[in-house]
C-alpha cells in the first residue's frame, strides 16, 4: 500500500514537469511528514551524507576531463587518426565516425559529450563529402552512446554507488561489450554505405597513418592512464578521474594549444554546472531510496517477484522492458538511481551477477539515449545537424535495431561482460 502511495506520488509530481530531483525530494518530504513518525530533520542530514562518498566524486572529475577533451582538440585528432585507419573502406567517414566515437568514449564518461565532441566536427565534413544527412546523424547519434559503455562511464559510477558494486570491475566489464557494440555498429554502417554507394576516402599511406597516430597519441595515452591506472591498482577510480582531468587540461592548453588559457574558467563553470545537477539528483535519489528502505519496499518487491517464480530469463526480459520504457521519460542517471536499488536485490536473489546486471542496465540506457522523446543523443545530434527529432528518429533506425540485437546478446550471454574482468584477474 505504502509502495503504491510513494510511487503514485512520485509519478504524479514527475509528470508535472518539475525537475526530477525536486519531485524525488518532495515525495520523500510529503510521505515522511504525512504518513510516518520518522523525524523530518533526518532528511536534511541525508542530503549531506548522500554524497559524502569519495567514489561519487569521480563524476565531477570525469565531466571536467571530458569538457577539456571536447574543447581541447583531442576529438579532432582522434577523428583524423580514425579516418586514416578505416576511411578507405565502405562507409568512409561514417566508419571513421564509429571508430572515433569508440576512441573518444574511452576517455570520456558521457554519451552526449561524445556526440558533441565527434559530431560537431565530423558531421559537417560528412555532409560536405556528399553523405546524406540522415546517414551521418544516425551513425554519430548511436555511436556516441558508446560513451557510457566503454570505460570510464558516469552511468557506471552511478550504478556502483547505488548498489555497492566495484567501479573498477564494472569498468573492466564494459570493455568487451563496448568493442563488440562498436564493431556491430561499424558493420551496420559498412553495409548501409555499401548498399547506398556512399563516398569513400582515398587509402591513407603508412606515413599518414603514423603521423595521425603520433598526433593523437596524447589523447590516446589517456586511455592508458585511466584504464591502466585503475586496473594496475595505481589509482582508485576517483583518483584516476582527477588525474585524467589534470592530464586533459595540460594536453588541451599546453600541448595541443587548442584551448586558450582564458577559456579554462568557462570550462570549469560549465563542468561544475553539469556535475552539480547530477550530484543534486544523486542526493535526492539517496533520500528516496532511504525512504524505500525504511518502508522495506525493495524487500517486498523482490519477495513478490520471486513468488511469481519468473525465473532468470523472464526476469531479465521484464527488466529490459521496464528500463526501455523508463528510457522514454527520464535520462539515464535518474533511471539508474531510482531503479537500481529496487531491481538489484531481486537480481542478486536470482543469482544474477551484479557486474553483468550493471552492464545490462548501461546498455539499456544507451538505447534510451537514442530514441525519442527524451533521447539526449538525438537532441544533441539535432542541435548539430538542424534536423527535426522525427526525422532523426527514422535516421537512427538501422543502428538502433543493431543496438537492440546487441542488448539481447548482452542480456542472455553473461560471459560477454564477465569474461574480460575474469581473464585479467580483476575479480
Amino acid at each position, binding site marked *: 500500500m505504502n509502495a503504491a502511495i510513494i510511487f503514485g506520488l512520485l509519478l504524479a509530481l514527475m509528470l508535472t514537469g518539475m*525537475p*526530477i530531483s*525536486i519531485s524525488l525530494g*518532495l515525495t520523500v518530504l510529503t510521505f515522511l511528514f504525512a504518513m510516518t513518525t520518522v523525524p523530518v530533520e533526518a532528511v536534511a*542530514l541525508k542530503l549531506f551524507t548522500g554524497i*559524502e562518498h569519495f567514489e561519487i566524486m569521480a563524476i565531477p572529475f570525469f565531466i571536467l576531463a571530458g569538457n577539456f577533451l571536447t*574543447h581541447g582538440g583531442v576529438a579532432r585528432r582522434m577523428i583524423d587518426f580514425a579516418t586514416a585507419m578505416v576511411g578507405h573502406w565502405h562507409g568512409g567517414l561514417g566508419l571513421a565516425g564509429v571508430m572515433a566515437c569508440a576512441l573518444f568514449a574511452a576517455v570520456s564518461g558521457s554519451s552526449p559529450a561524445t556526440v558533441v565532441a565527434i559530431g560537431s566536427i565530423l558531421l559537417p565534413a560528412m*555532409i560536405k563529402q556528399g553523405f546524406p544527412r540522415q546517414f551521418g546523424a544516425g551513425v554519430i547519434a548511436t555511436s556516441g552512446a558508446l560513451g557510457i559503455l566503454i570505460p570510464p562511464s558516469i552511468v557506471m559510477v552511478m550504478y556502483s554507488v547505488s548498489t555497492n558494486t566495484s567501479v573498477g570491475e564494472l569498468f573492466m566489464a564494459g570493455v568487451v561489450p563496448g568493442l563488440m557494440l562498436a564493431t556491430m555498429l561499424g558493420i551496420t554502417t559498412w553495409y548501409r554505405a555499401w548498399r547506398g554507394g556512399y563516398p569513400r576516402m582515398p587509402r591513407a599511406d603508412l606515413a599518414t597513418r603514423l603521423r595521425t597516430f603520433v598526433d593523437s597519441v596524447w589523447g590516446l595515452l589517456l586511455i592508458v592512464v585511466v584504464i591502466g591506472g585503475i586496473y594496475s591498482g595505481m589509482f582508485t577510480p576517483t583518483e584516476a578521474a582527477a588525474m585524467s582531468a589534470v592530464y586533459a587540461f595540460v594536453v588541451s592548453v599546453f600541448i595541443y594549444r587548442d*584551448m586558450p588559457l582564458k577559456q579554462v574558467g568557462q570550462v570549469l563553470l560549465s563542468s561544475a554546472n553539469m556535475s552539480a545537477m547530477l550530484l543534486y539528483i544523486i542526493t535526492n535519489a539517496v533520500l528516496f531510496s532511504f525512504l524505500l528502505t525504511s518502508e522495506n519496499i525493495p524487500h517486498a518487491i523482490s519477495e513478490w517477484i520471486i513468488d511469481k517464480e519468473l525465473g532468470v530469463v523472464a526476469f531479465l526480459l521484464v527488466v529490459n522492458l521496464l528500463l526501455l520504457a523508463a528510457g522514454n521519460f*527520464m535520462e539515464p542517471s535518474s533511471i539508474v538511481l531510482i531503479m537500481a536499488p529496487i531491481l538489484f536485490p531481486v537480481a542478486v536473489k536470482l543469482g544474477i551477477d551484479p557486474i553483468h546486471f550493471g552492464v545490462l542496465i548501461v546498455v539499456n540506457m544507451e538505447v534510451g539515449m537514442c530514441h525519442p522523446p527524451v533521447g539526449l543523443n538525438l537532441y544533441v545530434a539535432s542541435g548539430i545537424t538542424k534536423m527535426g527529432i522525427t526525422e532523426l528518429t527514422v535516421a537512427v533506425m538501422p543502428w538502433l535495431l543493431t543496438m537492440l540485437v546487441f542488448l539481447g546478446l548482452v542480456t542472455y550471454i553473461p560471459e560477454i561482460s564477465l569474461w574480460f574482468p575474469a581473464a585479467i584477474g580483476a575479480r
Partner: protein
Amino acid sequence: MLRVLDHLEEWLIGFLMASATVVIFIAVVHRYAAGVSFLYPFVRHIHMAWAQELCIYMFVWMAKFGAAYGVRTGIHVGVDVLINRLNDRWRDKFIVFGLLAGALFTGVIGTLGASFVWDISQTDTVSADMEVPMWLVYLAIPAGSYLMCFRFLQVAWHFVRTGELPHHDHGHVAGLESQAGPDLDEIEADGAGAQEGKR
C-alpha cells in the same frame, strides 16, 4: 547587487571545482613521490590524509551552490513529455507550479538544514581528518538551499513576467562554432555543387 551575487556564485563553484582537482592531483603525486627514495626526505613531512576529506567537502559545497546556479541556467530537467502536449495556458501553469514546488522543497530543506546546523554548532563535533567544526561544513545545506530557493523564485518571477525560461543546450559547444563554420545547409549545397561540377 544581484550581479555581484551571480558572479560570486560562478566564481565560487569554478574555484571549488579547480581546487578539488588540484588537491587530489597533489595527493596522488605525493603518494608516489614518497615511494621514490631521493624524493622521500622532501615529502615525508607532508601529510595528505586530509585530501580526500577536503575534496569531498569542496564538492559538496560545489554541488549545493552549483545546483542553485543550475536553476538559473535551466539545467535541472524534468519529465516534460506530458505538459508539452497541453495548450500553452495549462503548460505555463504547470511550469510555474514546478518552479514553485522547487522553491518550496529547497526552502523546507534550507530551514531543516539551518536548525540542524544550529544544533550541531552547540556541540564540539569536528571532522575526522581536518578537524574543522562540522557546523561549518554542514552550513552548505542551508546556504545552498536558500540560494536555490531564491533562484527558483527568481526564475518563476521572470517566467510570469516575460514567458521566458532559461534553457540549457547540451549541443552547444563554445569555440566549436567557428570550426563548424558555415551553416550545414550551405555546406550541403556546396557539396552538391561540387559534385555536379565534377560531372
